[in-house]
């Protein structure tokens, strides 16, 4: 393991990798700071460019955006009470009151330290937990993988159980998109509607780029111009003395980071739950509970540590099982597969250096984001002043040209625009769009595992219930479906009484 980590270290410190992770982090912080964009838009816009690079460099670039986005999101949440990314809403609970009291520096110090601690601790957990999980998963056969995929899908659907029907529909629609084209197993045509272009199928790249890149920017075009004259920062860089002051909350930092990592590990839960849960636990265990919500650095630190631990947490099921935890890691899965790398338990054995490079790159990304924000705090904060509509128009052009460039097919750009319309409608109606992406990504995995399991069982799924691990996962899946409804029913009953 140490040898692989050393090899990964040398690969991560190569000039191309360092350049990719620094530029990715920079883009990530910028899109994270800009409300309405977020790391997903940054990742999908950079996706077409990443194909020009080797896999480790491409992944470092996108991981930089992924992690950097969460760093940036806290800044407008603290200074303007406008979260750059949805999970930073929790940071604003205490960050904005501190800013109003003229203590923006201490709020930003707490948020940055939280982000840094969350990022580093979660990567360390990833380094030690991934091999253990991969070791367990190495004994998995098709029934176990099928059960894991069902478990992941059910978790995603249940995460939005307030919109259960819509979630199921979008998941099904995602599955449908994954079946278009030539079936890989039987080489049969499916849903090509007599056109040649459809035979290549619908790539994950134009779908994601359309849904998030174009869809989100169409929303941005309609948004009012944000009032940014309130931004007040006494210094252009972060005040180090304040950073030392918030170090006294180190226990909260470690606890929130661990919570964030484990929430990120579960498919469909996402960073919002991570920051809410970390904040809530910090509040319950704090000596100064009454200060929460009125402006305490501990609140900012807990929320940011929680949400920044999610990227590394989400990498655990992605690398070991090939199951993405959220839409962002689904895009990373797309990058892996496009480069001929298939995440799963064997990945850690087959590509140990690549995996170690990713670990080290993630550590570097956290260090880079932390240093960049300390040094260039005010310039970064001023990015909020860039008009959203201007950015939206520019991003649309880059998205369309970028998507054409991947396969030099105008058809892909057309798909991206069509998905943009769908994405716009779904985002505006607040439907759980993540289910659609998960459906597209997991569709092929689900179908292959289902057919393999049925082949093993001579056309029967009974084999899933005959093997202990798959049976355990199916029981767990049933519990995930039943328990929330039982709890909801009890709550409703109590209310009536």
């Amino acid at each position, binding site marked *: 393991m140490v040898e692989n980590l050393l090899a990964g270290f040398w690969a991560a410190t190569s000039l191309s990798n360092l350049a990719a992770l620094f530029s990715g982090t920079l883009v990530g912080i910028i899109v994270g700071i800009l409300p309405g964009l977020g790391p997903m838009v940054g990742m999908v816009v950079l996706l077409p*460019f990443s194909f*020009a690079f080797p896999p480790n460099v491409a992944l470092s670039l996108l991981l930089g955006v992924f992690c950097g986005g969460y760093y940036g999101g806290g800044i407008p949440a603290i200074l303007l009470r406008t979260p750059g990314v949805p999970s930073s809403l929790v940071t604003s609970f205490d960050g904005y009151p501190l800013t109003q009291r003229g203590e923006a520096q201490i709020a930003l110090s707490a948020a940055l330290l939280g982000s840094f601690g969350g990022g580093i601790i979660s990567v360390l957990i990833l380094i030690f937990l991934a091999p253990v999980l991969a070791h367990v998963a190495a004994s998995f056969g098709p029934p176990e993988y099928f059960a894991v995929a069902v478990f992941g899908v059910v978790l995603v659907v249940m995460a939005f159980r*307030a*919109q259960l*029907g*819509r*979630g*199921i*529909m979008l*998941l*099904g*629609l995602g*599955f*449908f998109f994954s*079946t278009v084209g030539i*079936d890989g*197993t*039987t*080489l*049969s*045509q*499916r*849903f090509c*509607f007599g056109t040649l272009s459809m035979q290549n199928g619908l790539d994950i790249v134009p779908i994601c780029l359309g849904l998030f890149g*174009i869809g989100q920017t*169409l*929303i941005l*075009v*309609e948004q009012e111009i944000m009032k940014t004259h309130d931004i007040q920062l006494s210094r252009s860089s972060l005040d180090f003395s304040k950073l030392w002051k918030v170090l006294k909350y180190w226990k909260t930092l470690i606890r929130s980071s661990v919570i964030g990592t484990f929430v990120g590990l579960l498919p469909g839960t996402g960073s919002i739950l991570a920051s809410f849960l970390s904040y809530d636990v910090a509040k319950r265990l704090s000596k100064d509970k009454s200060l929460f919500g009125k402006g305490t650095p501990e609140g900012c630190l807990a929320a940011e540590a929680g949400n920044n631990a999610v990227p590394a947490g989400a990498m655990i099921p992605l690398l070991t099982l090939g199951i993405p935890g959220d839409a962002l890691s689904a895009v990373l899965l797309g990058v892996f597969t496009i480069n001929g790398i298939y995440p799963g338990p064997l990945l850690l054995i087959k590509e140990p250096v690549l995996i170690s490079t990713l670990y080290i790159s993630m550590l570097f990304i956290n260090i880079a984001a932390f240093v960049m924000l300390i040094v260039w705090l005010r310039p970064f904060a001023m990015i909020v002043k860039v*008009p959203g*509509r*201007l950015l*939206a*128009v*520019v991003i*649309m*052009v880059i998205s*369309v*040209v970028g998507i*054409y*460039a991947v396969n*030099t097919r*105008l058809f892909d*750009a057309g798909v991206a*625009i069509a998905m*943009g*319309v769908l994405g*716009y*409608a779904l985002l*505006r*109606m*607040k439907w759980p769009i993540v289910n659609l992406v998960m459906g597209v990504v997991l*569709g092929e995995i*689900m*179908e292959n595992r*289902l*057919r393999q399991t*049925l*082949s093993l069982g001579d*056309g029967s799924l009974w084999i899933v219930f005959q093997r202990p691990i798959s049976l355990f996962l199916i029981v767990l899946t049933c519990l995930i479906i039943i328990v929330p409804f039982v709890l909801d029913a009890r709550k409703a009953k109590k209310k009536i009484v």
Partner: protein
Amino acid sequence: MSDKAFSSSRVHDLLGSLLGVFAASMLISCPWQVDTSGPDPFYKGPLIFPLILFGLILAGSLPSMWRLCKPSLNASWYLDGQGKSLKSMVILGLLIVYLAGLMVIGLEVSTWLFLVIALKFVKQDSPLKITLIPLLITLILFFIFKIFLDVWFPEPLIMGIFQE
């Protein structure tokens, strides 16, 4: 407007029902849309998963269909009070024209034109912005895609007309 009221808008039910109708029609036409001429048994074949997924969409759409047919007393077509998406639709139209423009007038001219018109439309039209940004972005795209990544772009159709 509360989230609950927003969520109960009939627009949601209409979209859900349309997806349900789409799934039902695909479910019926599936055997014709999927080539099942191979030797594999049904459970190994290409039809089993599409049947499951369309069944899933149809099942998910049933509540929407029910609500659309039997709306509650307070149901309305009001969505979110954010207007009629005119700006987005115009920009979307421009984007489609831009895609066609890539073939007709080429990357550079169509990018520059799209940016100038779109920026003017979204009122980001100060002389500095409208002159500098389209030019800068066009140059960046040209250098990244045509020079650095060496991406092939179709010969503009208009060039053919002039050459003739």
